[in-house]
């Protein structure tokens, strides 16, 4: 089984996150850049399949600036085999239309059976990229999976996944090649060991530009027209419970016509 796992580097959710007021793009300078937690889980899901069947290969793929190499190295040190880094200044500010075209083009360059992605990134939260890729590639997709297993191999086998979303539990079955996205219900990522960290430096990382992928007319379908910052919230009243807090709270509700 050949697996490609999609990886995204994002501003750390623990740090201050800002948008550039002119472009509406994420201001990468103010926050620390980290591999998105959900990407780590997607890598873990791929490596778990590799643990069970040593013939499985795991390739990481990211689109991002030079610094995104750190995210790939993290995944390689966890145990992935190799990586693809799509890196091109022309892709700064790409919307999902461009991003899905670029990643689909990169996926067409090599053979694979399964693409595993996170269900949504913490900076974009769009949650549409995996299904857009599947649509562009003409393959089946199953998104938002809390768990999945393979029945049989890449030839003739199936992937069976479970999802629990928006009040419905579902079991989904699909063949290969296909694209799945996983949720944070999937297991936490393993920690890279010392050998993994050393070995990661020697693993191949293919760097590609948009031109390498034969893509030239990269005009975003969507443009940002305005960016406004909301004033931060202020703290209000705070009381220490001495037995009368419930009555004080009920008074507060009444004053705001909430009861």
């Amino acid at each position, binding site marked *: 089984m050949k697996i490609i796992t999609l990886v995204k580097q994002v501003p750390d959710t623990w740090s201050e996150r800002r*948008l550039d007021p002119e472009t509406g793009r994420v201001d990468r300078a103010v926050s620390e850049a980290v591999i998105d937690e959900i990407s780590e889980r997607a890598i873990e899901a791929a490596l778990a399949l590799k643990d069970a069947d040593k013939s499985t290969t795991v390739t990481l793929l990211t689109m991002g600036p030079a610094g995104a190499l750190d995210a790939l190295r993290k995944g390689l040190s966890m145990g992935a085999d190799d990586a693809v880094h799509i890196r091109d200044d022309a892709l700064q500010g790409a919307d999902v239309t461009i991003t899905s075209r670029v990643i689909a083009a990169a996926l067409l360059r090599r053979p694979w059976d399964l693409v595993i992605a996170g269900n*949504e990134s913490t900076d974009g939260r769009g949650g549409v990229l995996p299904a857009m890729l599947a649509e562009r590639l003409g393959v089946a997709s199953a998104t938002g999976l809390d768990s999945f297993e393979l029945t049989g191999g890449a030839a003739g086998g199936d992937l069976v996944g479970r999802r629990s979303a928006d009040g419905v539990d579902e079991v989904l079955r699909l063949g290969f090649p296909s694209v799945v996205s996983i949720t944070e219900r999937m297991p936490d990522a393993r920690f890279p060991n010392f050998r993994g960290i050393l070995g990661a430096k020697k693993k191949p990382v293919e760097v590609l530009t948009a031109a390498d992928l034969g893509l030239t007319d990269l005009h975003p379908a969507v443009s940002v027209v305005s960016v406004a910052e*909301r004033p931060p919230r202020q703290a209000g009243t705070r009381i220490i419970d001495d037995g009368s807090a419930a009555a004080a709270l009920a008074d507060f509700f009444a004053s705001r016509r909430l009861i």
Partner: protein
Amino acid sequence: MTTVLVSIELTPSGDVRPGLADLVAHARSIGSPVGVVTVAPGDSASVTERLGAFGLAEVLVAESAAVGAADAEPRVRALVAAAAARNPTAVLIANTVRGRDVAARVAVRLDAGLLLDIVGLHAEGKRVVGEHSVFGGAYLTASTAGDRMTVATVREGSTGEQPSPVTASASALEIDDTTVPTAVITEATEHARRSERPELRTAERVVSGGRAVGSAEGFELVERLADALGAAVGASRAAVDAGYISQDHQVGQTGVSVSPELYIALGISGAIQHRAGMQTAKTIVAVNKDETAPIFEIADFGVVGDIFTVVPALIAEVEARR
């Protein structure tokens, strides 16, 4: 008036998600809404009747044997067929897990511009402009697909509007049955939900519990306060991870984003990722025994106290003042 297609998401038992009201309200702000729904053969009449309650006067109904079995694809095909027939300025789809799949594929198939998780929609000349709440409401941005057709995923609960009922009329929509690779749904079960308790995404009031609640049984305390206030039940990721309550109750960065009239956080520390899902609530109340908990920085009313004494007393107060 320009046409705006509104995609209808049905649960396995055929219920309409309450967030449809938000889709219809946003559609109205730029044109006239036309519903698009896919049902199993023979189910057209009953669904049309119920859609009138959401203010949809016109509905295009596609019957397909694949409904309930093939993931996303029947809805995708119905929207593509409806777009070809009606040339809409925009196609609106709920920002749910299933809705996003539909939107992703429809946008590619129609070569449309895709606006994500909109909380507002307006027209500027011929352009459709969507508004988004970014980084947990720290920013409000607006974006447009310009001259292209717009496909947008809509945040349920983003308008709070109640639709005025109309009588819906239906026309049949033909969709072809060409087979493309698709995931097949082999089992679908709806979560049991107390019918009188509001749905989290669209609720006007939310009561959430955190790690401090301590157990699945302990969550009953959260639920009792929610019921006393007519609120939906939410949770922190720590509470979900501990198995106190199912994941679709999670509020925050990687959970649901809510913007209710009232949000009550019980035994939740207020980590930045939790705040990202609730800090745009109109009124925030917090009960936490640690006076330095960050949740107090954004609470309109904070009680430093033990949830196991404050909450039962509060339920009694609320019930007594009814």
